[in-house]
């Protein structure tokens, strides 16, 4: 038969084997060069002078103060964000009201604002050149170049994380289970704790995880608002920058390596959540 061509093995509509190998090879090389190489560099540069130097760098007072700052910010920003996310998802997913789409757009807004512009906004609002800033100064309250400013900047950039994860999950789950609980005589609060929360706990954890990673890693907005005062308002990412600009490469990369390990831990937990509880997470999400 003249038009006989050998069939491929496996699925009849797959790409030919050489194309498949080429694509797999191409993506592997791309990922290795663009994702793995930078990650690996963080660790090799940190250990350029050996373990001792790296650990010594981490015990510098500035580095430790920065770590404390970053942890404190995350410890406050993440729970606040979780509360906001839960409230927003409850209102948006379980009730029908007009202007919902617009509200979701507003919640998403921080994703499309440059972190630098976010920092700028806070400086304009609370800085020494605004009337609010002058009033705050007169009453001995500092926002810019102080803890509250860093917190607000972190809250701004992490604002959509938990809400964006919860809203689609809660919309999909509907409200029949809550209605059933209410007909059985449960109070509203009890219904939330015993019916809603168990259904969304993995999605909530997922959102919190991503929110935490961003809260600890935010650079642009925090760099502007904090004023990067060593030992006072410097966070880990801003300290990385300062060490780097002072040519303290090992110190910069050691601190960066701690952040990178945190990122890897985040990815690991996130992947575990996706394997175990994919059905209870949002199908698509974008941060």
């Amino acid at each position, binding site marked *: *038969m003249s*038009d*006989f*061509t*050998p*069939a*491929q*093995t496996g699925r*009849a*509509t797959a790409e030919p084997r050489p194309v498949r190998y080429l694509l797999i090879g191409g993506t592997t090389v791309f990922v290795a060069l663009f994702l793995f190489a930078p990650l690996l560099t963080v660790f090799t540069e940190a250990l350029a002078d050996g373990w001792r130097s790296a650990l010594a760098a981490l015990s510098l007072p500035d580095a430790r103060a920065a770590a404390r700052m970053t942890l404190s910010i995350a410890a406050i920003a993440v729970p606040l964000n979780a509360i906001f996310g839960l409230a927003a998802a409850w209102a948006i997913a379980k009730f029908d009201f007009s202007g919902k789409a617009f509200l979701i757009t507003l919640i998403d807004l921080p994703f499309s604002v440059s972190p630098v512009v976010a920092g700028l906004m806070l400086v304009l609002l609370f800085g020494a050149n605004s009337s609010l800033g002058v009033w705050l100064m007169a009453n001995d309250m500092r926002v810019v170049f102080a803890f509250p400013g860093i917190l607000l900047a972190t809250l701004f950039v992490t604002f959509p994380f938990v809400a964006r994860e919860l809203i689609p999950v809660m919309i999909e789950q509907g409200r029949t289970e809550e209605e059933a609980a209410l007909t059985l005589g449960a109070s509203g609060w009890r219904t939330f704790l015993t019916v809603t929360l168990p259904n969304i706990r993995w999605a909530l954890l997922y959102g919190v995880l991503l929110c935490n990673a961003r809260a600890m890693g935010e650079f642009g907005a925090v760099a502007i608002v904090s004023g990067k005062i060593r030992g006072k308002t410097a966070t880990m990412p801003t300290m990385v920058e300062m060490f780097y600009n002072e040519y303290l490469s090992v110190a910069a990369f050691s601190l960066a390596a701690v952040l990178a390990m945190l990122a890897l831990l985040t990815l690991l937990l996130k992947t575990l959540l996706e394997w175990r509880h994919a059905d209870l997470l949002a199908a698509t999400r974008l941060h």
Partner: protein
Amino acid sequence: MNIDIEDLAKEFGPERALHPVSLSIPSGALIALLGPSGSGKTTLLRILAGLEFPTSGCVRFDGADATGLSIQARRAGFVFQNYALFRHMTVFENVAYGLRAKPRRERPTRAEIDRRVTRLLEMIQLPEIGSRYPNQLSGGQRQRVALARALAIEPRMLLLDEPFGALDARVRKDLRQSLRDIHDRTGLTTVFVTHDQEEAMELADLVVIMSMGRIEQIGKPADIRARPVSDFVRAFTAA
């Protein structure tokens, strides 16, 4: 074109979808593969189309071995259960798809494509809908467009997977007759899969009853009714 199936078997991992089955389909026949879900009828149809490859056994088209023939080279007009119309193309573009997909030297001219698509749309009695998109059609119209698209490539056989499954009862009756008409006009060897015994008995020249990956009985509808070979066939055709 006549189709010979010899000791064809298909395994999906440890699952046996098809025990070795043999079947001869005479040229120009209208055949129904009838059976409950999981009986292997769709697997058999997909092997004929080249969408699956058998674990063992062979398929012959007009006596020539076609087991390893690529899907594109088979020229099997295949109609999917949900019709699989291309949503982003108009009806005209859908029907013209197979002609435009041909390599340049085999591709008909634009005027020829126009002519053939128009003729096919007339044949399915929907000459006016060429510029519409699939989501603007009724279920019955979609089925006929899918049929026209399959016929456009001048297939050597017509394979239909539950062609009436997604339609409501009234439309189903009309479309049975129109499939019969198209079959009689084109004279194509036609195989369709169904789980509806009434549909199979009414429409097909020859009914192949399948169960659990095996062929239970092959025969003319009247013969199967009169002389079922097993309890399964008796029960299934009595429904």
